[in-house]
């Protein structure tokens, strides 16, 4: 039949034997698809638009050229890739823009067509959209969401449950009114099921896209925390549903006639609940359990991350520096302190907040151990808030401790602080080489003087005992001011317990 047409490119579409021949006449044909030289020739056989044409002379040429362009636009301009959802340009799943890229349309055209289709098909296009989301892999991937969802038995059950729940609702709604709700509603049973599967099995970035879709709905509920917004949204939704439902009931049936169909409705509802209720409940419970498990896993991951950041890192450092015992001890102690303050005092590492004597002593311990690598053993008895005089006391104590760390050569320094009703004592002691107080080198004497001077300026007292080979002990005493004689009056819980120096051991405090 082809051969009979004048001017037709003979052999171009020999068709019968499928063998490709060079067209004999030029500039024909418009179907050479020169823009797609990679395509095997056989693929060109489907150019169906061109079969039916007036097929004569210039007219035919014009016609063919017109339809050729059209056809090229329809079938030829795609990117040649297989159908994939487009992750870059998407409103929901990227199905529309994927289709558009595949067939060479503008994504918005496809979207509008889909939206119109959704109305025309009384909602059936929507589940098909979601089905596409499930079945079409995203670009750069081979696996579809459906292939993952297949193994998600809990998700399948949930999808069935939600679908059946909506189905039951629609069935009941249909008992009263089979208008738009039921017509447009039934397809959405499938939409809901597909959407559930997508939600549970899509990768995180696609989930974020879904959440973005829901966002306007949420923000519509008003500002404030997400929880409050959710509650308000729910209340508004419930109010709207109740009002419309009641309005229908009353307008359709009015008066006592309302009761007759209502009882039947209730029976049906009860029947449905009896039938599906336990199953729905079980699925809901499974869902809760699953969420709890996920929360536990997250908590565990959080702890694991922290242990990794602190303990494991330190252990690694210790292994690397095994030949340097001092460094190892220092690392271990720093880590112990950090872990202890995290576990027992709920403080994040590096959180410095000095507001009391015991806190201040701990801070001295931390700093000296970190800077000088000498372990500091601290014992504190009682506690009280700091004032400027006690700050001076802590300053002097710090200087004495640093001094001991630098000069004594002792393996450990002990700092003892005791808050008494009328004074605060701090003793800094080392078992190091000590010195003869009568023959001190200038620099050390200077330090001793600065400690003494600082204390006396604030009405306190400092004594330094030392002898060569005997170690050194610096004793600091600062009287407490009248104003601050009530220990921890400001702190809840212990302020009411009367006498001063309420026991508050700071070391290793737990709660």
């Amino acid at each position, binding site marked *: 039949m082809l051969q009979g047409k004048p001017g037709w490119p003979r052999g171009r579409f020999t068709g019968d034997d499928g063998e490709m021949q060079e067209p004999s006449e030029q500039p024909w044909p418009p179907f050479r698809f020169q823009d797609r030289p990679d395509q095997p020739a056989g693929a060109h056989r489907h150019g169906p638009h061109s079969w039916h044409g007036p097929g004569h002379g210039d007219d035919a040429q014009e016609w063919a050229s017109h339809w050729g362009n059209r056809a090229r636009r329809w079938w030829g301009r795609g990117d040649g890739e297989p159908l994939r959802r487009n992750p870059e340009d998407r409103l929901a799943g990227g199905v529309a823009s994927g289709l558009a890229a595949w067939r060479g349309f503008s994504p918005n055209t496809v979207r509008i067509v889909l939206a119109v289709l959704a109305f025309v098909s009384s909602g059936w296009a929507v589940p098909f959209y979601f089905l596409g989301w499930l079945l079409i892999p995203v670009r750069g991937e081979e696996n579809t969401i459906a292939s993952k969802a297949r193994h998600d038995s809990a998700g399948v059950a949930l999808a069935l449950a939600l679908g059946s729940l909506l189905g039951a609702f629609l069935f009941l709604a249909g008992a009263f009114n089979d208008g738009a709700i039921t017509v447009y509603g039934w397809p959405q049973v499938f939409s809901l099921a597909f959407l559930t599967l997508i939600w549970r099995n899509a990768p995180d970035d696609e989930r974020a896209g879904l959440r973005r879709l829901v966002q306007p709905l949420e923000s519509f509920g008003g500002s404030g925390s997400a929880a409050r917004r959710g509650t308000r949204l729910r209340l508004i939704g419930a109010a709207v549903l109740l009002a419309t439902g009641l309005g229908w009931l009353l307008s359709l049936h009015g008066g006592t006639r309302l009761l007759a169909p209502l009882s039947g409705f209730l029976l049906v509802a009860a029947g449905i609940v009896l039938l599906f209720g336990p199953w729905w409940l079980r699925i809901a419970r499974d869902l809760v359990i699953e969420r709890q498990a996920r929360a536990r896993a997250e908590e565990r991951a959080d702890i694991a991350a922290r242990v990794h950041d602190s303990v494991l890192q330190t252990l690694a450092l210790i292994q690397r520096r095994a030949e340097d015992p001092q460094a190892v001890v220092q690392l271990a102690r720093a880590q112990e302190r950090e872990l*202890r303050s995290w576990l027992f005092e709920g403080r994040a590492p590096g959180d410095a907040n000095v507001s009391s004597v015991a806190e201040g002593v701990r801070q001295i311990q931390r700093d000296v151990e970190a800077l000088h690598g000498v372990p500091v053993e601290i014992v504190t008895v009682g506690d009280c808030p700091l004032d400027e005089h006690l700050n001076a006391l802590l300053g002097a104590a710090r200087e004495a401790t640093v001094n001991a760390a630098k000069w004594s050569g002792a393996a450990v320094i002990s700092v*003892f602080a005791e808050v008494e009703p009328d004074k605060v004592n701090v003793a800094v*002691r080392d078992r190091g080489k000590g010195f003869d107080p009568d023959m001190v080198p200038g620099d050390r004497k200077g330090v001793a003087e600065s400690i003494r001077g600082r204390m006396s300026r604030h009405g306190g007292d400092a004594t330094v005992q030392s002898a060569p080979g005997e170690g050194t002990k610096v004793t600091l005493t600062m009287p407490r001011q009248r104003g601050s004689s009530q220990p921890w009056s400001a702190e809840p819980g212990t302020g009411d*317990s009367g006498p001063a120096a309420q026991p508050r*051991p700071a070391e*290793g*405090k*737990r709660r």
Partner: protein
Amino acid sequence: MSTPAVRAAGRPRVVLVDDHGIFRSGVRAELGPRVEVIGEAEDVAPAVELIGQLLPDVVLLDVHLPGGGGHAVITEVKKDHPDIKFLALSASDAPEDVIAVIRAGARGYVTKTISTPDLADAITRVADGDAVFSHRLAGFVLDAFAAAPAPDDVKPSFDPELDQLTTREREVLRLIAQGYTYKEIARELFISGKTVESHVSSVLRKLQLSSRHQLTRWAAERRLT
């Protein structure tokens, strides 16, 4: 303080109770030459059973144990074997836990960071009936006994002396808290080593027997009775 004769043959026999296996084996290896480790347990119930069978001189007891904590072991064992002595040790040192173990009857408390010779010393001393206070325990005790005498509305203890530390006891505790050894304390205070030990034992007795209001409240605030 009456039983040194019981273990005339040198090394004290020790049972280790600690839920940390690595720590147990470490202690066992290090203590080797100075004490005889005759058994290990990692939980309250097995520990009580094992101690009942082996009747060691000293039980080295972790403050934190699964199944009730160290004080549960002491309370159980003391029912049948009041002579067995306990030395508490722990890595964590929440005061309430430590005081609970001491009030249950432990003769001392040391931290796990203690050096091996010191630990061996402490065990020997406990085996001989003395009390062993680490610097931390001394701090806790000073804390618990700090402050003024109990107010009038509180029924005093059977023996009012139990409710208060003497000045000397306080001095001794302060020096322990600063890391002084008993020998150093003796020299510092110009008293004999035996006197230091008797002060410490007396503090331990008060700690265990006192029904002092302040101590009770101190304990209650930290959720122990």
